[in-house]
Every structure is written in structure tokens, then in C-alpha cells.
């Protein structure tokens, strides 16, 4: 991995959960008692089960907490792309990826306190994605910055 690559990569917590009442509460309670702060959160669901994806302030610690509590959990490398909160920002990112044939596995977005939009993406070639975005002058959020959002 090239210099500076590592801190551009965000560790997302991915979690398997059955699609049943009370399952999310179970996870949330664990995070609460461990004092983990959730920065971004989404659930992908498929009938009987879901995959919870979240960005938290202390990913390694959170992973261990959930793993020890018996959850099926993993850490996934994703990117946090900062965009202007104006029409056309998303289109630009998608075009950049399309041009160099990077596939987006999934993405979710939210608005930050300082009126920026933040897009969390998992791509099929993360190193190439970092390089491309940097060449295009698109800002990637670091883990440190994310903690302050």
C-alpha cells in the first residue's frame, strides 16, 4: 500500500443479524454499555436476515466487544468521500469511478455538521479508488477526522 493510503481507509463494522424484533436493540445495548459512538449506520436486509454496517469512533475496540459477546462481526475497509452538499456531487463521484471501471459494492451517505455530504463506499479495488480520487482532487475523510464529525 502506498504512503498515506492507510489513513484514508475507514474501518467499517459489519454485523450479521437476524431480521427479528429486538435484534437491533441487542446490538445497540452492547454499544451503549461499551460507550461506542456511532458515526454512520445502515442496514441491508434480505428477508430473514440483515447486514448491519456502521462506522464508529473506535472500530477495533468495537469489533472485539461485539465478537466477544458472540456476534458474527467483521471489519471492512471502506472509503469516506467528502462532497459539497449541492446537486451534482454524487454524479461526479459516480462518473469518476465509472471512467476507471471501479465497481461500487454498496454505498450510504449522510450530511455532516459542517454542511458537507459524506459518502461511505465499499469498492472492488480500494487502492485504485484512493489513487483515482486523489488525482481528481476529491477529499477522503480519515479515521481521525471521522471521529470529530
Amino acid at each position, binding site marked *: 500500500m502506498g504512503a498515506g493510503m492507510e489513513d484514508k481507509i475507514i474501518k467499517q463494522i459489519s454485523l450479521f443479524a437476524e431480521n427479528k424484533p429486538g435484534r437491533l436493540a441487542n446490538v445497540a445495548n452492547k454499544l451503549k454499555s461499551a460507550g461506542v459512538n456511532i458515526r454512520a449506520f445502515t442496514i441491508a436486509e434480505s428477508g430473514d436476515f440483515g447486514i448491519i454496517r456502521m462506522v464508529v469512533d473506535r472500530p477495533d475496540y468495537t469489533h472485539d466487544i461485539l465478537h466477544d459477546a*458472540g456476534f458474527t462481526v467483521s471489519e471492512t475497509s471502506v472509503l469516506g468521500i467528502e462532497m459539497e452538499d449541492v446537486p451534482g456531487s454524487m454524479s461526479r463521484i459516480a462518473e469518476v469511478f465509472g471512467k476507471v471501471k471501479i465497481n461500487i459494492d454498496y454505498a450510504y451517505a449522510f450530511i455532516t455538521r459542517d454542511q458537507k455530504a459524506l459518502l461511505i463506499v465499499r469498492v472492488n479495488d480500494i487502492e485504485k479508488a484512493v489513487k483515482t480520487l486523489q488525482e481528481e482532487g476529491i477529499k477522503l475523510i480519515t479515521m481521525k477526522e471521522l471521529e470529530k464529525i
Partner: protein
Amino acid sequence: MPEYWDPEIETMPAEDLKKLQEEKLKQLVHYVYERSPFYRKRFDEHGVKPEDIQTLEDIRKLPFTVKQDLRDTYPIGMFCVPNSQLTRFHASSGTTGKPTVVGYTQQDIDEWAESLARAFTSVGMGKDDILQVSYGYGLFTGGLGAHYGCEKLGATVLPTSSGNTERQLELMMDLDVTAIACTPSYFLYMIETARKIGMNIKEETKLKRGFFGAEPWTEELKKRIEDEAGIKAYDIYGTSEMSGPLFTECSAQSGIHIWADKFLVEILDTETGETVPDGERGELVITTLTKEALPLIRYKVKDLTRKLSEPCACGRTHPRIARISGRSDDMIIVRGINVFPGQIESVLMKIPEVGSHFMIIVDRIGPLDSMKVQIEMHGSAFSDKMSDMMALKRKVSGALKSVLNLAVEVELVEHGSLPRSEGKSKKVIDKRKI
């Protein structure tokens, strides 16, 4: 270490064994006819007299007995000795009806223990071994059966019974236990518990062998247990009606030796009741040749197996049966197709992503039967990509479909959410109201 417990009997030429069985069978029919009103009535109704039994083949003239007979004569109507000669009772849990009671004379207990001592010897166990008996002690025959067998052998018993798993693991490690006897599902639970408390059975214990039985299990699960615990896993077999656990595989691991001087085995076609050719699957029918308190004539065990007739590499001449492939009672019929839980276990245990616990749920939605299999995946198989998870579900349902010829819905459930069992595990929930 002696190779055989009783070399003369265990390696007796097959012809001599047959003669021995014939003599014992002739004595047995007189014994039960004279002592048990139940058998006398059954023989009379069937139009057969003890004198009609002169050769082994004549056994076909005798009526069958089934578990219902034990229920109908509850508690001790089939016994052939008065209470004063009894040494012990055991009883079944009676989950599918009235409980059944079995009884033993002192000689019955001794014969039972000797059967297992022979079996333990046949896998290379001896006086230096320490056997942890994690079968339940009490009315269930597993615990006390393995216990007495081990003492007869002269090895050391650690009578933990089932439950209190962390304590069991601690003792296993601290006492240098070399062998264990329990249900395969309980051993899986032990492996899982060990992992949870940061203990490695493979690396940190002296465990070399496990005897697993009292519920049907498959070759695939056996392989998984052997890999994960670093032991040799042996099938142990016997039912409470026969006494309890009596037989195991030998070191050749090519079937379970049934001691022919004590038990007569028939494998019959479930439909016609005729003997099936050696090697073909049928239902196991047992006649006890030496039991005093509760002898059984042509008892339909409801277990399905095959008779293996080729000579065994271990040198024992006693007939062998293959691993019990299922109970005829366990068969579920889904959309007219016969399904055995063991078939499903075989498929699942061959897929590395699938965990060791599963549950089969059969239901009827509208006019159609549906079958769902719930599985837990191994942590390493989890992916944050939905497409990977869907691919895993398709892989499992495809594998099941190709074996069962039936569409099966596969449901991924959270790790630890399927019931863990300390005794016999329940693998099927049938919600159909038929």
C-alpha cells in the same frame, strides 16, 4: 495391551458362532415361553411352539416385538424374572408416549459391562485410559452403561454425567482424560464452549478418543469432530431395550461389531419384513440371546442400517452393522418425498462455511409442505456484501436440493441461536397438523 478382551469368543470361526447362537436361541424360546405370560400368549396367537425352533433359520417363525409391547405391558409385564432377582431398572424418557421400563438381573448387568469392555478393548483402550462419561447418569442407560463397561475394562472412569460443561472441560484437562463418551451433539457443544473460554481441546488435553452415539449422526459430522478436537471418533451403539450402549466400532472402523454370542441380528425390509441381502439397507431386528430379566424376541429397534459381511481387518468374526443411517421413526415425508435428518446433516457438514448446528422445520403452507433448514455460518464465512451471503444460501440450498430432490429454503440465523443439547438433540420441528 491385549488385542482382544476374550480372544476365544471374539475370533471364533463363524460356523461355530452360528452353532452357539442356535443352541442359545433354542434355550431362549423355551425360557420366555415358560416364564412370561406375555410371550406365551404372543407365541400361541402366532401358532408357534418352542419346539418348532430347531435351527437359526426357524427364527422367521417367531413373532416380532416392538416398543409398543413394552408400553402395553407397562411397567414390567414382559419381564421373565420376579422382582427378587432384579438388580436394576432403567426407563426411557417417554417423549413419544408412556415411558418404557427395562430391568436387569446381576448377570444382565455383567454381560452388558462385558460387551462394552470388549468394545473398548477393540479400539485399543486399556487400564491406563481415563474415560470421561458425559452421558447422562440416571434413568438413561448411557451414563451407567459406559461407566460399568469402563470399570470392567479396568480403566478409570470420570463420571461427570452431562451438563456443567466448563467444569467438565477443566477436569478433562487437569486429569489427563484420554477418552470421552457422550452424544455427538453434546461433544459439539463442548468444543464450542472450550473455544469460548479460550481452551483448545486438540492442543491442551490428552483426549485421544470419543465414543459418540444415542442419536443418529453422520460420517461427515464424525470427520468434523475428529478435525476440530484432534481425536478419533467411534460410533457406540445400543438401545435401552437391548440393555444400553453395548457395541462400538473397532480400530478398523469399518462397522460396529454386534457380539453374536449375546445378540442375534436380522436386517429386514421395512415393507415386506423379509431379510434383505447383506449390504442392503433395512431395519434392525434384535433377538437377545443371554438376557434374563427382559429377553427380547425379534425386537424391531426402528433403526436403519446395513449388515456388513466381509471379514473385518481386526480379526473379529462377529457380524458388523454399518453406522445407523437413521431411525425409521425419524423419517419425514415432505411432498411425498422421504427425508431423513441424517441426509441433511451429511450435506451440511460437507460445506465448510456451515456451522455444526442446524434445525429442520417442516410446515404446511396452504396445500403444500415446505421445508426450511436453519443454519449458523462459521464466523469466517460472514461477508458484509449481501451478494456473498445470498450466494452462500444458494450454495447450501442447491446442495440440499441435489441430494433430497426437494426445494429447501435455507435460513441463516445468528451464531448461538439454535438450541444446544446436553443429551439427545432435537433436529426436526414438524409444524404440520396432519
